[in-house]
């Protein structure tokens, strides 16, 4: 780790100001950033801690019935909430208790690890990513592995999830990290079904539109069984699984998510 200063702002406005400084970086739960610093792979001179910002911690519903989660809310709180079962189920299987007590939804979405779980929920729910500056639709937010629509110094203050009629997340774990080797989030809304896939693609989280169409017409595992798995081209091919294997798992996990959706 290199030396750095830490700032604990009292408001979002102060945080944004502090982040305007030279080589300043936001610190959420630190579950990704701190290991990176320890390996000297990043060298911010100032960390701006968001965890203590009460404006950014907590869960409520807005007038439209959307579940609104503060950007610095830890996974454990989302897991315990329960008003969006698919989302709470997803949060309850992120890492281990220590990770869930510290790691935050904002940190996870800002990082956009191609194997992370939350991106599947956000994209699969058509969520809205609220920042200090604007609101970004999930469909516009994820821009490839570790790439997002966030600008330098922009912070995720809140994420708004429309609550579906039925939902489920199926995570097939990468055996070492226990992140998603393939994770599929299925959400059934009145106006159609969304299917978002994480862990599989070299382009990061994506929507499996063929499955969305089939499931919008017939929300059943049989509808998935009738589909061809997506192509293995462009899927991640590594020590833990080939592109073809991942593509195959996308189909299997989608079927299981539909069967388990509540």
């Amino acid at each position, binding site marked *: *780790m290199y030396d750095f200063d830490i700032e604990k702002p009292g408001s979002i406005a102060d945080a944004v100001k502090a982040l305007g400084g030279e080589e300043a970086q936001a610190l959420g739960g630190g579950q990704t950033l701190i290991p990176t610093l320890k*390996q*000297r792979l990043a060298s911010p001179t100032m960390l701006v801690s968001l965890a203590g910002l009460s404006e950014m911690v907590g869960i409520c519903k807005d007038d439209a019935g959307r579940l609104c989660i503060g950007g610095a809310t830890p996974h454990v709180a989302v897991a315990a909430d329960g008003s969006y079962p698919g989302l709470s189920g997803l949060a309850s299987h992120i890492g281990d208790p220590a990770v869930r007590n510290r790691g935050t939804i904002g940190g996870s979405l800002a990082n956009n690890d191609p194997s992370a779980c939350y991106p599947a929920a956000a994209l699969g729910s058509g969520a809205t990513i609220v920042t200090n500056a604007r609101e970004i639709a999930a469909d516009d937010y994820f821009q490839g592995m570790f790439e997002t629509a966030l600008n330098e110094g922009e912070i995720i203050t809140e994420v708004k999830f429309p609550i579906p009629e039925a939902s489920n997340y199926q995570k*097939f774990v990468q*055996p*070492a*990290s226990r992140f998603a080797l393939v994770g599929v989030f299925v959400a059934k809304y009145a106006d159609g079904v969304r299917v978002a896939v994480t862990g599989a693609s070299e382009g990061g989280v994506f929507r499996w539109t063929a499955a969305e169409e089939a499931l919008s017409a017939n929300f059943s595992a049989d509808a998935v069984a009738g589909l061809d798995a997506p192509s293995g081209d462009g899927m991640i091919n*590594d*020590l*833990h*699984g*080939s592109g073809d*294997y991942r593509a*195959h*798992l996308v189909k*299997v996990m989608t079927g299981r998510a539909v069967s388990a959706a509540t």
Partner: protein
Amino acid sequence: MPKDEGIGASSKRREDLRFLTGKGKYTDDINLQGQAYAYFIRSDVAHGTINSIDTSAAEKMPGVEKVFTAADFEGVGGVPCGWQVTDRFGEVMQEPKHPVLAEGKVRHVGDPIAVVVADSLSEARDAAEAVEIDITELEPVLNMKDALKDGATKVHDDLTSNLCYDWGFVEENRDAVDAAIKGAHHVTTLELKNNRLVANPMEPRVAVAEFDSSTDDYTLYTTSQNPHVIRLLMGAFVLGIPEHKLRVVAPDVGGGFGAKIYHYAEEAFCTFAAKAVGRPVKWTSSRSEAFMSDAHGRDHVTKIELAMDKDGQFLALRTDTHANMGAYLSTFAPSIPTWLHGTLMAGNYKTPLIYVNVKAVFTNTVPVDAYRGAGRPEATFQLERVVDKAAREMGIDPIELRRRNFITEFPYATPVAVEYDTGDYHATMDKLLEMSDHAGFEKRAAESKKNGKLRGFGIAHYIEACGIAPSNLVGQLGARAGLYESATVRVNATGSISVMTGSHSHGQGHETSFAQVVADMIGVDEAQIDIIHGDTGRGPMGMGTYGSRSIAVGGSAMVRATEKIINKAKKIAAHLMEASEGDIELKDGAFTVAGTDKSVAWGDVTLAAYVPHNYPLEDIEPGLEETAFYDPANFTYPSGAYGCEVEVDPETGKVTVLAFSAADDFGNIINPMIVEGQVHGGLAQGIGQALVENCAYDENGQLLSGSYMDYTMPRADDLPMFNVDHSSITPCTHNPLGVKGCGEAGAIGSPPALVSAVVDALQRAGHTDVTHIDMPLTPDRVWAAMKS
């Protein structure tokens, strides 16, 4: 009735109190006055020529004491290898120099190039970034077979090739084996890989060294399984420090599994640097460093052929193995694929003709050496897997085929140079079938099928050679050391006892089980006995702990020393009771005269030894302290039957281990609870190898599994509740306790049982072309096998 003290009792592990309450004293807990910190700059390429190293900027950085490179080690020896194998043509192996810091070339990712010693670790790291190293990358040597082709790039330019040795065993049998295979009714052939593993002890390696300029004494604290061996190797071969000027201490050590047997460059570096900079020097490995600098395990590529007659009687066995040595020869590396592997190829079977060929190969990877089981898991895996395949090809039940070929008469001299003293393989097999409810398997398989899952059962019967080893034998085989063990039993005046053993405990529970033996022999409370280990300054020369040798060899030394104590104490007791020595009996901590009611307590005798007012001074010396060295007459041969039941998810290829049963014959048992714990740990590691663990390099020689993000350790939820039994006992005939050793068995017997279980599940589901899957059996591999 289970005993509550002494041999056979499940005494609680007394050391666990300090381990579990955070009071263990590990090497990293040792901080010496004024110590400096070493940070190793390691190669980030697999193979390259070092053009230049510029340390000038780094030397000027804050807190920097000195930056060391190979230039500082001129005249210093290389890290030595402790075993010299002779090849099948009678030539000795090729043995490259292994410098403390890379000289001219780097040969694996992680190879140390330079070291910054500074006031703090962060200053050392900062300065390390200012060291400028210019390296021209060379083509990495990775694939063992390609490495042996003519014109292949060489790992060591001064060797004639990448071949360390081409070993044939038993060479004289080669033609006879070939002929038997040629004429056999049926030959089963299997090609397989034994995956490379990283040992991953919970405690990473640490070295802290100091030099006392007033006496020229060095002290090294290090995470070692055998501090005396480190003193010998480092003192005599690397730094030229005589034993009496070098003390090596290995305090509490948090797991070794083989990886802490060897003498490593970092230990020699810290000891050397402590003198050079005039202050203690400390190095603590990070986990990332451990992945690229702790010796790896296994990594064999094998073709095995088993010839049978029409009834399935084994006629001959031939194996062809490539064994990866990595970039340099680690301490015991050459012996693992040879003497700890070839000698076990008979397994439990009376195959009359065996020929083992092993080509040991240098590659641009981390050195490979012993890892829990060391050679024996590799032997057992290929043998048990080929037997399983043979059973399928011959249409004979795999249990029946094994039984037909079991050795039943002992002692049994194998065609691969060892003599099994005892064993009863049918007994362990019977026990296993009972424990695993083998009879109920079909019903359970039907149940799984109903749930859309594929169930399979796999079996393995192993033999291992433990209690290493007779020194005269290993000397003939190329060992550059003896493999005896020592013990000093020091009885104090008030009767308490300190036992100094050359065995080292790094999780095994010696402090408990060794005390049980002495307590049992003398009849005193275990609490009166302390077991002291891990310090060359306190105990006699010892060879340390590996190869399941502690109780069999170290325990035997302790028994011999305790016998000497008892003999002397009896003389003193005879004098005190004015009786004849031959009439003295020791029972429950009191000496009696046979046929009388005369008695003296243990404490009276020990006090007399140190306060010899009334004492046979003309016959014996005062004091009560004895040392014994024990050199075993033979290896010990634990054996056992292991059964694994799995379920495979046909959609994802995921394997779930539902049940694992182990029926072992470890000879006599000192502490059943500790034995059970050892088997559990071994099973977890064996299942880990078979199911999840995989040390992989990419085509550039970069370590793909260099952290826990990609190297999978088995976790509690990967494992079933274990079902273990060690009631089948055929005591070892040649050591005083009749013990065989239990530390490695679990890791040896479990991988083939698991792989056979998965193959069985797939075969039953109609995948009849799947005869083997290489470890680890990760979901993607099992899925690919089902798809092919």
